[in-house]
């Protein structure tokens, strides 16, 4: 019974639609697991680290998904249209085959009835042929009506199924578009957040770097000033020491020369003084002593 249903065009169409729908749901589930690993569905979406790369990949993947979805939707539609045509053809063929079968069966039945009627009512003069022909026409018309009715029902059913498939596909398309819009929105949010984070990081980094550079400059300037002061002090001290040393050495040389001059003068003077000169110098010494009060103070005592 099930095998017969799947072999029928309608059963095949419905089964194919279900399989496609299941494939779509699996694809959707897998795509979410692929792009948001570790994220529960319905949980707030937080930009991951390295959001820019992920967003770019998500965008590419979303575009690819969109294209694949459109492609699959087009293929599904084409397949559905072909399937519909095939169903129509097979229905027509089945109906024609059934009409032939039924006609053959009715003809056989008619012949058998005719035989029965001929055998049973051979003796009557009723125009059975005309009656049978009439009944056959009526019966064939009824059959045709039934067949048309069945065909209409089948067409309605196929149309309903096709509409359902189209609606499903439309829903899938809308849902895919919503997913894409959601992705785009997420991308925008990510982008905005990333821009803010980037700006904040840049600002903080720049502020930190500027402050660090400023401190560094101040420290360098301070060290430069300290070193310059130290160098100046050392240079000044060294120059001072050199100057003092030079002055000291010059002073010592001058003093040495000076003392040599004095020594020579003394030697020369000492050897050239006559006894009279000595007497004069002694008297002069005594006179100078008296003039300076060297004796006077003691006399007062």
């Amino acid at each position, binding site marked *: 019974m099930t095998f017969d249903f799947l072999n029928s065009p309608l059963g095949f169409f419905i089964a194919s639609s279900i399989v496609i729908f299941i494939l779509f749901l699996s694809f959707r589930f897998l795509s979410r697991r692929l792009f948001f690993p570790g994220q529960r569905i319905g949980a707030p979406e937080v930009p991951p680290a390295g959001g820019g790369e992920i967003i770019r990949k998500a965008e590419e993947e979303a575009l690819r998904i969109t294209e694949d979805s459109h492609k699959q939707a087009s293929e599904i539609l084409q397949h559905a249209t072909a399937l519909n045509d095939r169903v129509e053809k097979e229905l027509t063929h089945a109906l024609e085959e059934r009409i032939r079968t039924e006609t053959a069966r009715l003809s056989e039945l008619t012949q058998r009835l005719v035989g029965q009627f001929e055998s049973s009512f051979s003796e009557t003069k009723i125009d059975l042929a005309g009656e049978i022909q009439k009944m056959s026409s009526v019966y064939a018309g009824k059959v045709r009506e039934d067949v048309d009715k069945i065909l209409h029902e089948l067409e309605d059913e196929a149309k309903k199924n096709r509409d359902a498939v189209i609606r499903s596909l439309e829903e899938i398309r809308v849902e895919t578009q919503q997913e894409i819009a959601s992705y785009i929105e997420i991308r925008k949010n990510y982008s905005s957040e990333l821009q803010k984070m980037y700006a904040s990081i840049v600002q903080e980094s720049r502020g930190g770097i500027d402050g660090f550079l400023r401190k560094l400059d101040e420290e360098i300037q301070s060290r430069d000033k300290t070193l310059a002061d130290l160098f100046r002090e050392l240079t000044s001290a060294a120059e001072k020491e050199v100057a003092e040393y030079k002055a000291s050495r010059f002073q010592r040389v001058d003093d040495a020369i000076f003392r040599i001059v004095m020594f020579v003068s003394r030697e020369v*003077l*000492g050897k050239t003084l006559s006894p009279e000169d000595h007497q004069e110098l*002694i008297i002069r010494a005594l006179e100078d002593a008296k003039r300076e009060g060297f004796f006077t103070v003691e*006399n007062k005592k």
Partner: protein
Amino acid sequence: MNVKEKIELILKHIRTAEEREEVEGAITVLRESRYHESGSFDIGEILREKVSRKIASIFQEVIASDEYRKDSATSEIFFSELEKSVRAMRPLSITLAVEPDEKTIERASSWVTREVGKDIYLVFKRDGRVLGGAELVFAGRYRDFSLAWRLETFFWARKEDVRSMIHPS
């Protein structure tokens, strides 16, 4: 000539420390001789072997009269006063570059007796470093009036001039 005049006369001849010592020595000798040789008191004879001729002649000039030969009390007063006066003399130390000759001693002593006082005797010392002039020490005070000091003062006062001569521009 009374005792004071005689003492002044003797002190007048004391110019140096050596002469002062000789006078003191003479006083001692005469005192001792007087006690041991009572009755005969020949100053010239006593002093001739003990002190210099100059000192001996001074004492002979001053105390030649008989009263000092016979009257021991008078002579004791005289020697006592003389000794006291000699010991009271004040020294003036004079350091010279050369050994002073008689002329120098006489000239210096005359100047000191005249300009400073009669109770001063000279203590001559020799130091070649003074070159000339004298270093004086009197009543515990020192003063350099030597030629070396004057020369040094002169050079130090004109040090820059000397230096300019050493470093002619």
